[in-house]
């Protein structure tokens, strides 16, 4: 079982960094059996390609423009992903849909891709996330953990929820 958990986003741009904050928190507070790869994907584009290859499951956490109210959470799976985020919200989304389509034409798409996304409120030069997004932080973590359990990982909480 080869699983990748990746957080995307720019932590210098407020809510945009939510994905990275979520995976960092999970990395610190959980252990997994069998182990999985946890990656801060930042705003990398094609450089992420080889991390996605030869994986059975890829779980992505990211800010997504669902065109809904800030804090709205949704899960997109496999082919839903590139088509649903075609309206590009930030630069690195081009990276994500690029990677996914590159994987497709190279015939190296992971067996399952899950994107757990949240509608951001503010994308501006700040290290702080807005309260509406912060309030849903634990919910996002729970969704990620559920997803990882579904895949077949035993998730052990090392330190309690914030």
């Amino acid at each position, binding site marked *: 079982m080869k699983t990748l958990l990746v957080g995307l986003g720019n932590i210098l741009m407020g809510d945009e960094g939510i994905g990275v904050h979520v995976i960092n928190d999970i990395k610190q507070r959980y252990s997994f059996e069998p182990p999985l790869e946890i990656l801060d994907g*930042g705003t*990398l*584009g*094609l*450089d992420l*390609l*080889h991390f996605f290859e030869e994986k059975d499951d890829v779980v992505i956490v990211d800010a997504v423009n669902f065109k809904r109210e800030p804090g709205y959470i949704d899960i997109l799976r496999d*082919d839903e992903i*590139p*088509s649903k985020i*075609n309206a*590009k919200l930030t*630069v690195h989304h*081009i*990276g994500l*849909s*690029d990677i*996914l*389509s*590159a994987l*497709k*034409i*190279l*015939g190296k798409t992971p067996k399952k891709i899950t994107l757990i996304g949240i509608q951001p409120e503010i994308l501006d030069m700040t290290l702080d996330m807005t309260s509406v997004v912060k309030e849903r932080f634990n919910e996002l973590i729970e969704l990620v953990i559920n997803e990882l359990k579904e895949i077949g990982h035993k998730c052990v909480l090392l330190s309690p929820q914030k």
Partner: protein
Amino acid sequence: MRAVENALGITIPDNARILRNLISGIQYVQDHVIHFYHLHALDWVDVTGALKADPAKTSALAQTISDWPNSSPTYFKAVQGKVKALVESGQLGIFANGYWGHSAYKLPPEANLMAVAHYLEALEWQKDVIRMQVLLGAKNPHPQTFLVGGMATPIDPNSQNAINAGTISAMLGYAKKAQDFVEKVYIPDLLAVAGFYKEWASIGGGVANYLSYGEFQKDTKSNTTNCWLPAGFIRNRDLSKVEPVDHKKVTEDVAYAWYKYSDDDKKAKHPWDGESTPNYTGPKPPYEFLDTTKKYSWVKAIRYDGLSTEVGPLSRMLVAYASGHKRVKEVVDMVLGKLGVGPSALFSTLGRTAARGIETLVTAEMLPTWINELAANIKKGDLKVHNGDKWDPSTWPAEAKGYGFHEAPRGALCHWVVIKDKKVANYQCVVPGGWNSTPRDAKGQRGVFEESLIGTPIADPHKPIEILRTIHSFDPCMACAIHIVDSEGKELIKVRAK
């Protein structure tokens, strides 16, 4: 980092110099190849045109221009199948932003198919060769191992977790792979594609002044002029004279930029005295039109000796060519000869794109030399990567000023630092994207992009692929490219309509 080293008078160890050269070198090679195939090629190559190609004829074409092994009819047929599946699925993905079928596409179907095949090969190739960067820099494209005084990449022939004989041999392997692809795929493709677009050798020239700070140091002195790719300034396309570079000639005004200077927005400042106080006075977004008679840009008017100046591979290759750099001269002359054009063709969109390829080839050829320099030092027992003499702030003077030159893949980059009482009192970065996307200055001189777009023929104002060709030829970062396509692209059409 180099700015601080310069301010504090730090000399780096020879191994740090070599490691920096290697990281920059592999970054040039990988970055330029990705730029050509994955960001720029589709301005010239019609992906959907590849569907009409005859795989057998494509194979014949590929074999005439190169002995690269992936060139059989079966291979090209398989690639065509992949493209077809993608087009039919309606999910063009990476190819989604193209102006497919546009009349400005000139390649025959077979050349389109060949280029698309190499587009895919380059995707695979880049993730292997960049492992060299990862070995030395830990992360691409933002290496983590640079620090003031040298590098944080340990060298120890007796450790598994440091640069050792195994790393050296792995790097030589990546360098070979890099060079092979550039020599046998990138350069032949570049020449083949350019052959169909020779009119672009007289479009997109721009401002006529070219700057390179010099890169790939041959000694360990701060901001040395002893570089493998030389420093220099070329004024008004005069290749008979290369002026030495003086960092004091770099200035910025904010007459048309959304900043406020404490004295006068029109007065150009050297970065040591630079100020960056944002002052947005434009319309509330989203807007249709930007009034360019007022402030209209987030980029300051960056000038060299008061002149709007281009930076990037073209500038570096021109400075090297005009300085008599032997290998650069050979490759430039070979490319010009094959295309049947003179050196003046370099001052153009096509010249810019060709210069990037030329630079990739000569840099790829140099990688083994630097790797062997490192190996020779290790053999001598020289393992030092960092000079920590000035690590402790108590060793610093009360006041210090420095500047640090670097040639990033996209062009000239310099940081200026003023240190007072062991703290940063001012820090200014003047970066390649800034030089090229600079707005008009207080004297009304246009910026580099602006000047390069004047007179561009546009077949269809709603699909201005011709503008993309010129803007992409500068290799603005992806973020900038998107921004520019939307705003500047539309604006130019207005300019032309006047």
